[in-house]
């Protein structure tokens, strides 16, 4: 039971990171980015290359991978995002970029899936099972990142400006940096739940977006709450009715959209 709950929480934590990146980009730039999940996949593959091929220690490789992906995301995103794309066009644009990234990853890395072995604990403290310790670490790291984002947005000048109406160049760069960091961290943490392959991001994309809509489109807290709810629902259905696992999130989302038009903590009107 505790493993089931922890597993659902870990999955929900990863969905939350992706959902937060989506909402942040939506509120600051007014765009809908579907490329976040594949950005996470690229980060995870980069870390795999740095650790398994180059031979860097796992911690150092993870930090280097995160840094490279965040810097690359900020640099690459400037050109398309400064064009004041409307949401519908940005959605299509990011799908195109995500598919191109996935195709490139498949061509570069070839034989997958890989086992990254992130956060594997051989001798966990307090005599908890290794899997429980690993999932606990995933939840703790994701929660730490979410708290850091919340503190940044509430208690720093740049953070408070991010969600305001007048945005400086620096504030926009910081937003992109946060979105890249959230996506990259989600990709890395996802490797502890699913095997690392080029479709690893896709498996988390739909539940994360469902979390955004269930929680309330545009709400940062709603994104976290909705993602956790989606993960617990997904895990419960998979245990109770395994044959319905493939459509469980879709059914939840459709029900939520029809019964709660603005979601749990919705902010933005439907567009």
């Amino acid at each position, binding site marked *: 039971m505790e493993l089931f709950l922890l597993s659902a929480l870990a999955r929900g934590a990863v969905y939350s990171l992706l959902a937060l990146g989506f909402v942040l980009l939506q509120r600051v730039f007014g765009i809908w980015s579907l490329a976040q999940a594949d950005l996470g996949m690229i980060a995870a593959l980069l870390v795999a290359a740095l650790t398994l091929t180059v031979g860097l220690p796992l911690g150092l490789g993870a930090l280097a991978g995160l840094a490279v992906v965040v810097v690359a995301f900020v640099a690459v995103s400037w050109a398309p995002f400064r064009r004041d794309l409307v949401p519908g*066009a940005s959605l299509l*644009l990011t799908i195109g970029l995500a*598919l*191109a*990234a996935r195709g490139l990853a498949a*061509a570069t890395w070839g034989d997958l899936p890989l086992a990254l072995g992130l956060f594997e604990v051989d001798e966990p403290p307090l005599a908890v099972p290794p899997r429980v310790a690993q999932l606990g670490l995933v939840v703790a790291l994701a929660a730490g990142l979410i708290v850091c984002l919340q503190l940044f947005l509430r208690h720093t000048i740049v953070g408070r400006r991010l969600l305001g109406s007048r945005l400086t160049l620096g504030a926009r760069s910081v937003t992109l940096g946060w979105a890249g960091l959230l996506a990259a961290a989600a990709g890395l943490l996802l490797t502890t739940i699913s095997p690392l392959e080029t479709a690893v991001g896709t498996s988390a994309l739909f539940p994360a977006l469902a979390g955004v809509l269930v929680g309330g489109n545009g709400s940062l807290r709603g994104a976290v709450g909705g993602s956790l709810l989606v993960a617990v629902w997904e895990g419960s259905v998979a245990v109770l009715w395994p044959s319905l696992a493939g459509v469980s999130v879709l059914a939840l989302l459709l029900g939520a959209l029809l019964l709660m038009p603005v979601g749990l903590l919705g902010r933005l009107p*439907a*567009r």
Partner: protein
Amino acid sequence: MRSKTPYLVLLAGVAWGLPAWGVAAEPLLVLARLLALAVAALGLGIFVGWAGGVSLAQAAMMGVGAYCTAWLMGAGWPLLLAASAGAVAAAGLALPVGLAVRRGSLALAVVTLGLAEAIVSVLGGIDGGSLAGGPLLEMPLLGLGPVVFSGPEAAYRGALAALLALVAWAWIWHRSPWGRLLPGPGSLFDGRGLAGTSWRSVWITFVLSCAFGALGGALEVYASGSPVGGGYGLERLALLLAAVIIGGPGSLVGSIAAAVGLGLLPLVVPSVAPYQAVMYGLLLAVALLYCPQGVASLRPFRWVSARVQGGRPR
């Protein structure tokens, strides 16, 4: 300014007469598959361009049409009936899912993404090769007593006839009271999206576009022999989306021409075949950034188009 219609009628006539000019079976089947792709792109183009919505389930709907058709033809149904049943099945799936359109473009896009994932995962567990129980091309396209149409020529002309019929039908739909409620071409790119439109007309357009997708899948599977498990995923979706944007959202002829051109690319240049996802993804992104109204809106193409129509380039 002269109308483009006579040129298009002439082109359709030439296309119809191709088999009579001794074109071999293999090229005819390739053309039939490309025309089937164009049917699916046409459906998506109508939804994206006229209704201002984004559907990410079009490729999966092709899968629904393909698998239904293979299964029903294996049970003795002719292609015409089996493909119609596939289109009805796709429309049946799209009806409840399309209700998400009431909550806006993003909700519909996310829901169609989920639907596509669910469909692809279900179809992935079915052995498409054994569904029909024999070569589909030897089964009838249309069985009218002793008159039976089958084979490559029937596959090609069936796909062409379906495409022309759907173009005519879309033209009529756009001018119907329901079609006139749609926001029109370009609404996706000027930020209007679905705002201020009748959700029912957008909903019906979405359902119809899914049915078009299923028909495309049915026609394709007849020409190719059997449905391919992994062939209806995001790679195919990227091709369809790129065709719609490059062809010009809302342009029937543009969507068809772009789908045929993009589908032909890996056949003409086999070295790009392993990189189709990269190619279509980048083409989609570049087209959205530099010519969101389609390649025809670029200066050289505007000049050619104006010359064809007897006017002066703008």
